[in-house]
């Protein structure tokens, strides 16, 4: 042990391995002993929740699940929370997937959640599937869902789907919620909202979020779910903790650790500078 060291020098020279140990601890503790943390709810998340909540039973929501497996970790919890909400409220769902590697994953997710709620395909929800060129597809859906999707994901003619009988285009849905890991989000704003005037809300990854706040201010989107935090907020609005809420304790403890490490280092640094300046 280096005995001659002043306390501030010690703060400045903590072996990085101690930080590794602490980091390991703060993620192992919630894994072994789960606990919950309160989440503050922001207006842009509440807006999405309320828009769906305001629908009467039988109302129609278009859920556009436009992410692919690479951004699944952040966006799947949102999709799940919204599906639960819509099925709880007996809404009807039009579901599309405009990302190339998305459809199989969406099918798996929607079937699972619907089964949980005892909801039937084609009666309570319709999964239309994937078509390339999102911009063109969105434009075409504005005229009629049947133009880009003559049949749904499972090959059923859309005309033969009971739920779709009175649903032709965006004027028949209350709003579009697009969960996107890429620029499909922009296309919903440019074509869905700007051309056809359908209200659009977005769920995006944490990194993308900052690019979409301006659209919130300009009213081109009515709500925004930013990353895992947005998902966790949404889940806590549903009072149904899911993946995102379960992930939050880890995030809180680890962020706190890094913040404390930064404070410790800087307290040491300032004290050291003071001491050296005083000694001279």
């Amino acid at each position, binding site marked *: 042990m280096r005995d001659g060291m002043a306390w501030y020098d010690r703060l400045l020279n903590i072996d990085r391995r101690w930080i590794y140990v602490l980091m390991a601890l703060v993620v192992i503790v919630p*894994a072994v002993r789960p606990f919950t943390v309160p989440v503050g709810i922001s207006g842009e998340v509440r807006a999405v929740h309320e828009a769906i909540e305001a629908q009467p039973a039988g109302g129609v929501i278009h859920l556009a699940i436009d992410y692919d497996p690479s951004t699944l970790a952040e966006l799947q919890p949102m999709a799940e929370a919204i599906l639960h909400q819509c099925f709880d409220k007996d809404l009807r769902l039009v579901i599309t997937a405009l990302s190339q590697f998305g459809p199989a994953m969406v099918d798996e997710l929607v079937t699972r959640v619907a089964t949980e709620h005892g909801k039937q395909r084609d009666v309570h929800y319709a999964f239309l599937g994937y078509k390339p060129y999102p911009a063109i597809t969105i434009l075409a859906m504005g005229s009629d869902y049947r133009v880009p999707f003559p049949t749904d994901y499972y090959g059923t003619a859309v005309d033969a789907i009971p739920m779709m009988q009175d649903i032709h285009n965006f004027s028949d849905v209350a709003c579009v919620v697009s969960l996107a890991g890429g620029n499909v989000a922009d296309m919903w704003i440019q074509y869905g909202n700007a051309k056809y005037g359908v209200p659009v809300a977005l769920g995006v990854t*944490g990194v993308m979020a900052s690019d979409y706040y301006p659209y919130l201010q300009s009213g081109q989107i009515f709500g925004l779910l930013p990353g895992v935090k947005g998902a966790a907020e949404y889940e806590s609005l549903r009072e149904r903790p899911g993946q995102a809420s379960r992930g939050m304790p880890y995030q809180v403890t680890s962020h706190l650790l890094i913040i404390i490490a930064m404070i410790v280092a800087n307290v040491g640094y300032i004290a050291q500078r003071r001491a050296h300046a005083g000694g001279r």
Partner: protein
Amino acid sequence: MEANWGTLLWQGGAVFLTLAVFSFLYADNPFYKFAERLWVGVTTGYWTMLLYHQGFRDKVIVPIVYEQKWYYLVPVLLGLLMWFRLSPRLGWVSRYALGFYVGISTGIFIPLAFKTAIFLQVEGTIRPVAGFWPAVNFTLALIGVVCALAYFFFSRPHTGVLGVMSRTGIYTLMIGFGAGFGLTVMGRVALLVQRVIFMRDYFVSLWGSLF
């Protein structure tokens, strides 16, 4: 839970490798070195066959053998020139292939970069401004962009007005870096959590099948 011993064994291997890689955090050690060397070997084997199935077959065998597109012999010939690298005296022959490789890549890059890095950025920055606070923020963002670009002026000394702008610019850049750093923590922690849960679940299921 029903135990599938084969799967449990493979998972045990995965847990061992996970711990071996993590052990590098303490210091380099034989376990890490074992995991690293095994991983490098297995990956190279995987990559080789992947390139064979998806690249060599689709871009060499199919066009030449099945579709008789003889002009695909040209890139193949160039690819073979790369092998002259192995000869100390004739290594320079591979430069012919490198010439095509670099020329094609950079030629494709130039107009595309104009589009994505210049035109799309300029288009994204030109927005109408309405309302007081949006106008303030917008002006600040614009000043930020201009000053940060001033930092990248190379052909003039950073003194006078340019000096002030470039100082402002580097501060703007630093705010961007700080934000980028702070934003990334979340995703990295999520990855670590996945690993921890993977190991927890393994030990739980191991315990369950042993007792």
